[in-house]
């Protein structure tokens, strides 16, 4: 089972990378966040293939490397849909495929405003061994990750997650605030969490020359995220929180590289999380699929 999952996961990743290298690309202007979302959606018809890693320290147990692949598709200019495939390696234990997520983001307003809302809906089907820490909710704490993979894989989690994303862009700065509510579809209470982010390109004007290392291609910032308890015990007690500088490098070739060292802010948090990611935007994915099936576009 484990070897099958590992092979399937490696197959998916290899296929994604080869595919991304082959297809035409669009230059991206991606935000640097790993956890927080801003109000910008994927361009319609484009597909972004993303790979992310989280290297986490674990007190009293094995450090881990969690990873996920995202397929992010712009269905329309107001709706982006994403599929996630998650996995993790716990050092000294094993590598496992931990589940999938299906995420949707909707932009309800027609025009830009000072604060721009985006509605988020996600369904998760994952095991208890999932460690990607894509969001922190409820009373998630470091000690939850001490369970061995073999045991944690036995727990299946079906969860829905709702977010209200409020994002502003002012003088080149993006400021975003995400509030989340998640419900395990088994008999568990609603859990809550938050993510905050601020970022800005290193230069606001574009250079008149083509360049890879121009400051306008780099976006730096910081994000903070954590849990807010659940319906029965809302608040900060027994919750974990993180602060993480973030940096994205949008290459003219269509690749985006991101890196973020994250630091736990209390004793319930992992001491250190090192995240990095690589993504590539495929231009006109919808047209290619259409042609494949005989469309004219």
């Amino acid at each position, binding site marked *: 089972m484990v070897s*099958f999952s590992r092979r399937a996961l490696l197959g998916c990743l290899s296929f994604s990378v080869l595919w991304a290298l082959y297809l035409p690309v669009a230059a991206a202007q991606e935000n640097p966040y790993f956890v927080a979302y801003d109000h910008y959606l994927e361009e319609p018809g484009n597909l972004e293939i993303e790979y992310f890693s989280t290297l986490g320290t674990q007190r009293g147990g094995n450090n881990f490397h969690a990873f996920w692949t995202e397929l992010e598709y712009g269905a329309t200019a107001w709706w982006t849909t994403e599929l996630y*495939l998650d996995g993790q390696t716990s050092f000294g234990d094993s590598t496992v495929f931990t*589940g999938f997520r299906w995420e949707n983001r909707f932009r309800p307003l027609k025009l830009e405003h000072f604060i721009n809302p985006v509605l988020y809906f996600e369904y998760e089907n994952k095991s208890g061994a999932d460690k990607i820490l894509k969001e922190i909710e409820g009373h998630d704490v470091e000690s939850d990750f001490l369970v061995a993979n073999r045991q944690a894989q036995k727990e299946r989690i079906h969860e829905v997650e709702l977010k209200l994303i409020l994002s502003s862009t002012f003088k080149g700065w993006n400021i975003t605030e995400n509030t989340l509510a998640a419900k395990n579809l088994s008999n568990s209470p609603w859990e809550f969490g938050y993510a905050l982010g601020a970022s800005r390109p290193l230069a606001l004007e574009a250079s*008149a020359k083509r360049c890879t290392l121009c400051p306008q291609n780099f976006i730096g910032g910081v994000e903070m995220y954590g849990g807010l308890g659940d319906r029965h015990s809302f608040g900060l007690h027994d919750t974990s929180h993180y602060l993480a500088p973030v940096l994205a490098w949008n290459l003219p070739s269509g690749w985006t590289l991101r890196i973020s060292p994250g630091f736990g802010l209390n004793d319930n948090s992992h001491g250190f999380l090192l995240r990095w990611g690589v993504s590539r935007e495929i231009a006109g994915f919808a047209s290619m*699929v259409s042609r494949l099936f005989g469309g004219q576009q």
Partner: protein
Amino acid sequence: MKAMAAALAVSASFLAVSVVLAQGRSSGKPLVAAAPGYDPAIYAELQEAPEKARNRANPFENDPRAVAAGAILFEQHCAECHGKSAEGSPKAPSLVVREVQSATPGTLFWLLTNGVVRKKMPVWSKLPEPQRWQLVRYIKSLGGPALRAESPAAQP
């Protein structure tokens, strides 16, 4: 095993939705016209710009480097839909038409900032404000004097 099967099922659904959406676009009436048979109605959105936005001046109007910078930005973010020379494509309208070239820089900036999200034009406020003005400067440089003749900005 169940999780893998579910993941594959979701992947297949994802692909199917993409196909349906893409087929819908290709088999139905085109949403926008390419340059040769362009539809003036598609440019009506330019009239939605508020008075205050229309009257904004381009801070890069007299900066010759802005055209070169705007050209690079256009190639990176706009050419995919509007065509390499902004001539239009089945995905997005031509920008080398009188409706666009006679619009004020402020109007084009407003449209770039807000997009037309119900008609597939994304919001481009994720590009910093100076870059949006550089793009406007480049787009306005494409038309030539004949197309710009009716520009309100050009009139006394």
